[in-house]
């Protein structure tokens, strides 16, 4: 495992690279890139919200700020603090570097947890086969390094947008569930849902993680091999953590709502907040271009059908929740990855921050997904789209020589790539389980 030896230097180098680029964040102008900052996560809008709040208006007056009031409390004062001849959001950028580091470490911890259970399970199933099927790499290290070195993450970290925090909360929820720290899992889930709504569907993987424990081969294999009751020990659904989780979710949500209502005291209050955050996500009001496809769709679709298609797109995320949960019940972490990817495809304001998260989570399953098809094609596709998309955007918006369709085409290609990625990874994971079964049958 060569990765282990160079792990810490690589982490350090990634952080150093970020710190090196932070002073140039203003010149790179990443904060206004449609790929990086969406109306939900833009720090510039947060600054406007903070300014409005300081001038005793509700931060949600006008259509500028759509984030959480809690972020406003934490990051707001930092956006105002300036140092001469330094970029505007220096403090925030430093915080985001830190947040990225935490996220990477949590991903690594998740990887270790996964590997541990994997080891145990495989030993339980067939110790002799262990080396062969599990002769891979340290997935946690790989995943965290992917997270830290992914250009998408670097750009998101420097691009003064709040998606690193959203990502941290999602990872926190998964980590908490993996290591059965129920309050942490509940906190991560509540905060992630509060920040960007879509992680709400992660409740299923989190519950499965709490109930069954981390990823394992299909439960069917265990009784085949160990009818004596050893296998069933692993796969009994424990209700205790679930109830605890429900309790903690209630506690944390009340806490968050209470804090929000305190910070919005004197203004329109919670209703306004929900309308401006969740309503804004669900109704796709802002039609400014981003790497998704929905903005152009809703800019072009006939007003009459708008409601219908809004339902279609959002239900499409929910449609897949149940089938995937049934099929991947034994692999909750992978299920979480699939959910995150699907919501990244279909969410109303996608950014590369979402891609950064699911690509690094993909690294967690490096061993299982080693035989994934089209991986080279996907790799090239991601590079191609991420190079072409800014070019098309520039041609359309800045030069005026291009057309909206060019940019939309890259968005379509990106959506297709993500689709292929998620479908292939699910297919490979199912095949992997099948292969395990076959291997076990053979012996």
């Amino acid at each position, binding site marked *: 495992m060569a990765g282990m030896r160079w792990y810490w230097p690589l982490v350090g180098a990634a952080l150093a690279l970020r710190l090196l680029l932070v002073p140039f964040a203003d010149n790179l102008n990443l904060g*206004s890139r449609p790929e990086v900052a969406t109306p939900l996560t833009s720090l*510039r809008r947060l*600054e*406007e919200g*903070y*300014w*409005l709040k300081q*001038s005793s*208006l509700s931060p949600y*007056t*006008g*259509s*500028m700020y759509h984030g959480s009031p809690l972020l406003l409390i934490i990051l707001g004062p930092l956006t105002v603090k300036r140092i001469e001849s330094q970029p505007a959001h220096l403090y925030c950028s430093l915080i985001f570097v830190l947040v990225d580091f935490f996220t990477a470490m949590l991903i690594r911890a998740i990887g270790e947890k996964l590997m541990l259970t994997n080891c145990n399970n495989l030993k339980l199933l067939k110790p002799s086969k262990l080396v062969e099927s599990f002769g891979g790499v340290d997935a946690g290290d790989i995943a965290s390094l992917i997270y830290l070195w992914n250009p998408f993450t670097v750009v998101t970290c420097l691009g003064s947008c709040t998606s690193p925090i959203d990502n941290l909360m999602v990872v926190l929820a998964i980590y908490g569930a993996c290591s059965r720290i129920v309050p942490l899992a509940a906190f991560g889930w509540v905060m992630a849902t509060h920040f960007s709504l879509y992680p709400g569907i992660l409740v299923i993987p989190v519950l499965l993680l709490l109930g069954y424990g981390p990823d394992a081969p299909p439960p069917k294999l265990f009784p085949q091999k160990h009818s004596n009751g050893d296998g069933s020990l692993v796969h009994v659904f424990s209700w205790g953590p679930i109830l605890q989780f429900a309790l903690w979710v209630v506690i944390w949500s009340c806490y968050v709502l209470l804090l929000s209502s305190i910070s919005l005291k004197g203004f329109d209050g919670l209703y306004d907040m929900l309308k401006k955050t969740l309503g804004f996500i669900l109704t796709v*009001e*802002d*039609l*400014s*271009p981003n790497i998704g*496809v*929905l*903005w*152009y*769709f*809703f*800019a*072009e*679709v*006939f*007003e009459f059908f708008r409601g219908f298609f809004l339902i*279609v*797109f959002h239900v*499409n995320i929910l*449609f*897949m929740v149940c*089938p*995937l949960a049934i*099929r991947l019940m034994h692999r909750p972490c992978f299920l979480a990855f699939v959910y995150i990817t699907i919501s990244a*495809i*279909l969410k109303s304001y996608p950014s590369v921050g979402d891609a950064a998260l699911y690509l690094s989570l993909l690294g967690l399953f490096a061993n299982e997904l080693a035989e994934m098809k089209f991986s080279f094609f996907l790799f090239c596709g991601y590079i191609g789209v991420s190079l072409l998309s800014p070019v098309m955007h520039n041609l*359309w*918006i*800045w030069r*005026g020589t291009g*057309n*909206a*369709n060019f940019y*939309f085409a890259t968005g*379509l290609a990106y*959506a*297709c790539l993500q*689709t292929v990625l*998620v*479908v292939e990874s*699910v*297919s490979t994971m*199912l095949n992997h389980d*099948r292969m395990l*079964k076959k291997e076990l049958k053979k012996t």
Partner: protein
Amino acid sequence: MSKLRLRFNPTAFLLIIFFFNSVLRPALALVEDGEGLEEEFTEELLLKPLPDRKVLAHFHFQSSAPPSAANGRHHRLFPKAIAQLARKFQIRELELSFTQGRWNYERWGGFDPMSTANAKPPGVELWAAFDLPLNEIDHTWKNLTHALSGLFCSSINFLESSTAYSAPSWGFHSNSSKLRYGALPREAVCTENLTPWLKLLPCRDKAGIALLLDRPSIYRSHYHSQRLRLISSEFTGIILEQALTVVLQPSMRSNSPASSGYGFLQPSWSVNSLFGKEVVGQCVLAKTSRIFFELEKDLAFKVDKQQPLSSWNNSAFELSVIPNNDIREINAVKNMGSSVLYVFEVSNSNDHMPLDVGIRWKIPLVWSYPQAPFHMNRYLMGSGNERGSIAISLRSTHLLERFSRVSDGCAVHAVIFQVVPWYVKVYYHTLHIFVDGKAQIISDVVRKMKISPSEDKLSPGSMELLLRFPCNIESATLTLDFDKGFLHIDEYPPDANQGFDIPSALVTFPDFHCSRSYQLDDSIYYKSPLLSKFQEGNPVQTYTEVLLVPLTTPDFSMPYNVITFTCTVLALYFGSMLNVLRRRAGEEERLERSKASEKPGLIPLLLSKLFSKLKGKEPESSPPLSTSSSILGPKLVAKVILVGLLAVIWNYYLKNG
């Protein structure tokens, strides 16, 4: 009985009539005269040479109606449509202007009653204050825009949408929460707006001064602004002011000696050469009908220097008609000169003796107009269609220094009122103020600020700022960053690539109040609404330019393609995902086994299948297939039987039916 009565009646009738005539009528008349309860109409025209060889003509018509209780719904002179409007919508004050062209504050003046009251932003501007409870105002405003739109044949009804109007609190006019303000900068103003406006006059454009309103010459002008102002209250009744301000370029033909001496001679002109028409008698319904000819302070001062300006014919110029009166401005600053006003009574003219007021210059003269304390400019910065900045710049005209030697503590206030449509998403936290090129701390300059940010597709953003500058500044600039919004294809106007207009900002200088009073006795003031308006005056205000913001457009021909493409991608995702999920391991194994066992290709396999089906036998060579067919067999048979049964039942019912 009845006959008797008939005979008796006439005498009684006569008596009654006599009684009324002798006693009551004078009494009634006294009441009417004494309290001004009669409807009145006055018409006035002010002509004024402008320094840049142009001529300003300002038509001012005023109708007034006494409080409605006095004479019910009947109007002799006052336009009924307006009276109904004022009554129905409970309007306290309303101003509607149709303008084409931009008032040139540098050349045509920015610090005299004429420019401050009559310079209007291009397009349509409408504001109205209502006498209604707060919750009814928005609704009433919407109805009012529709009514006005019908009345003036224009698209004022676009101001109905909540994205088009705003409710300024103190930045515009008064501290009123019952005021609504809306502007349509792109509205084209033409003769179809003028005709209904003229219809409100009792003589229309058939007699009196309005006869001069020749459409081609008005719409050829450099600037024309057609205004309607309504003031209504329970005590004074309704006052309707209709004003039309035109800046015309006199034709050069009449100006024979083109240049002489050190400069160009101003073009000589007359009413006839400007409008192609002459005034022949007043509108008989008008109480007063006058033409004024005004010489600006600076001009009068320069003419005075040549020769004491006493008569209408001096060494500098000659008026074509002998004025009835010439009056001087009072309270003028000594060394600055004072304006001169020549008065012509229209009632003296008739068909044989038309009133053709004009001027013939004898010597070249250069003069300037009083300037507002700051020249305002507003412009856009940045390129591309993603973001930009709006800058408002104030350039000092050194008016303050000229007026008074000011101390260090002296300060000048400016109120900026700006409305931006929602698709220009202004970041108000990026407000920067530069004074003489140096960035300032906002709180040092901004005394008062009211901002209502724009809501997407709901309301425009409006900004009211009270700024305080030291007197001795050269220039000040305000900048605000904004993001350009992206609209739904239906929201783009027909010519989307032309760009979108941001209405003019209004800058008011509350410290400066300009008024001009002439040496007249009170009775003449009472009779001349135009001069009494001059005397009243108003704070100096300046409208900035309209900004043209180009917005990115989507492809307008693409809706179907976009819908199909997007839905295809979705279907791809959904279909392939479902396919992956419902693929069974068992099936796959069977498939693999069948592949392994059957080396022959697809076509032989199909053929063998077909043959076996035809023979009614099952191919022995492929056990997995046979199992599958054996599984399918009973099901298929059951299905066939079911369909057959259904058909039979259906047939049976049909026959019975």
